[in-house]
């Protein structure tokens, strides 16, 4: 099986196959100079609980947490939590067709919408603040990803939103 695994704008195409009672994962790693090398690891996996992945990787003992999120997993390794998107390339075309990603504004952080700075139909510039979401006494301004027109507003001031919630849509 092949997956496209994306962490912070770097995508690796990872092949995974069972091998004996373990898993074999293989991908091509590109270093800073553009040199390519093949990584291949035999992983003995144990999941002490659904979210905990304990892995013996070529004898090395590693542990990661994987909690499903809107676009993949929130993965933590030794204190660093990262969003990891895992895409099955066979289903990718389908998903891209359905989504309309360009002008969608969603929040990474759950919170409360304290101010809507635009109205339906307003012309906006890329980078212009559109909504203010507050959580834990901190305000976060969310900015327009593109130049365009506000085509849809999905929340009202005072609404509490979950992480990943769609707030509004800007059409180019």
């Amino acid at each position, binding site marked *: *099986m092949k*997956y496209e*695994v994306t*962490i912070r704008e770097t995508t690796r195409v*990872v092949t*995974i196959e069972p091998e*004996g*009672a*373990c*898993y074999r*994962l293989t991908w091509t*790693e590109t270093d800073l100079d553009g040199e390519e090398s093949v*990584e291949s*690891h*035999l*992983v*003995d*996996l*144990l*999941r*002490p*609980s*659904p*979210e*905990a*992945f304990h*892995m013996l*990787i070529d*004898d090395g003992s*590693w*542990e*990661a*947490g*994987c*909690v*499903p999120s809107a676009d*993949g*997993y*929130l*993965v*933590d*390794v*030794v*204190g*660093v*939590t*990262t969003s*990891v998107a*895992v895409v*099955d390339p066979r289903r990718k075309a389908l998903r891209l067709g359905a989504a309309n990603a360009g002008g969608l504004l969603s929040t*990474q*952080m*759950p*919170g409360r919408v304290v101010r809507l700075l635009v109205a339906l139909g307003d012309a906006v510039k890329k980078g212009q603040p559109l909504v203010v979401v*507050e*959580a*834990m*006494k*901190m305000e*976060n301004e969310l900015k327009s990803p593109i130049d365009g027109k506000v085509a849809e507003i999905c929340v009202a001031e005072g609404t509490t939103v979950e992480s990943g919630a769609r707030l509004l849509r800007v059409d180019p």
Partner: protein
Amino acid sequence: MSPPTLSPSRLKKVLVANRGEIAVRVIRACHELDIPTVAVYSEADRAALHVRNAGEAVCIGPAPSSESYLRGERIIEAALKTGATAIHPGYGFLSENAAFARMVVEAGLVWIGPPASAIEAMGSKTGARQRMVAAGVPVVPGTTHAIDTEEEALAIAEKIGFPVMLKAAGGGGGKGIRRVDLRGEFASAWRSTKSEALRSFKNDAVYLEKFVANPKHVEIQVLADQHGTCVHLFERDCSVQRRNQKVVEETPCVVLPAATRQAMARVAVQAAAAVDYVGAGTIEFLYSQASGEFYFLEMNTRLQVEHPVTEMVTGVDLVRAQLRIAAGEPLWFTQEDLRQSGHAIEVRIYAEDPSNNFAPAPGRIGGLREPGGPWVRVDSGVYAGYEVPIHYDPMVAKLICWGSDREEATTRLLRALREYRVRGIHTSVAFLSAILRDPEFRRGDYSTGFLTPERLAHLTQAGRNDRIATIAATLARFEGDTRPARAVTTPDASAWKLAARPGGAR
């Protein structure tokens, strides 16, 4: 240090008017003294740890603190209803609210904190500066009164010399403070400080201080009983700050000469005496490594977040001490009994995303394993499965390590952070490890300017393990895709795998 038994009459049952780790901390101290406890909670906090740990729990209103944790009359009502005879305010919320302290006493309850008059005296920054000057305590050069006009302020700034600090007289917690480097920036800084002060503290009074370059933030812990005895418990170095919020705290401060420590401690006891202080309090100073001088900054008339490091090196349980002092006991040790033994460091674990400009990261903790073992202390406010709410402070726990020296404390803390597993939300764990590995931090001579934007950029990227994350996420997805009915490998299922594992069991 053989303590007498606690006078039982005044603390029959204690209500803790707070939430999170500090409410848990206070409940623990009460239970150790066999005092029953009452938690109060907002509607958003039914599942909070302090509710689980307390003996009783009373709901006091909706999620926003203005409708629950800041509603003094509801808290007092809850105390009377449950038969509590005393209230501990923790830190934050109503802990430095003199009016609430008075209400508590007027309701016939014991207030586990300093007298309202002491809170008031220290509550106004300018008022506190005046009192301290009168008591002979060194303060940062500047005004001791709020300044009326921009013109007057500018004249004083030019006399003192730039850079200067504009500060809200009613401020606190690192808010309402602005540095002005140049004459040309003064007008706009003056206006924005005043408006922020009005917005945040409902008080637009602003005063002015000389800016002390690269100071250390050093503070002295004091304990005073109701019988006129006051001791200090040495200093804490809280200079690792981001946006004026403490991130790492330690004691002792390694660059503080012994004589300066003594002088600072003497001044701190003087300052407490000047307001007839009772209970646990902290006097904050700026210390200039360049000149060796120190200046009074403010007094916090409550328990501090960072009180554990003092506990670890002195062996004194500060919350237990607060309870016994409130019960009327005289201090059961003298200044001479107190020693600084070894070294302690605290880091604050926040639900925030350091790699995304420290954005708050509330959400469900999908899994949690806190570190343990020797000299590792976790003061936590959360548990596995807990939903960190959006309504309150993002601090989820404090991690404190003691060592026989600073190197041992540091390496132990690094080990404990390595064990810390918080799943499903972003935290500051790796960022804190990166700070502890920083050479300047390791030298110990860092100042409050330590976390420069450049250093932050560097430290927030440390500790990434993208290959391991890649492997784990791929496994998660593959097992989800291929065995959706039973996605979890149980230990049992894995036993048979061992036999088949190349190079495994023989």
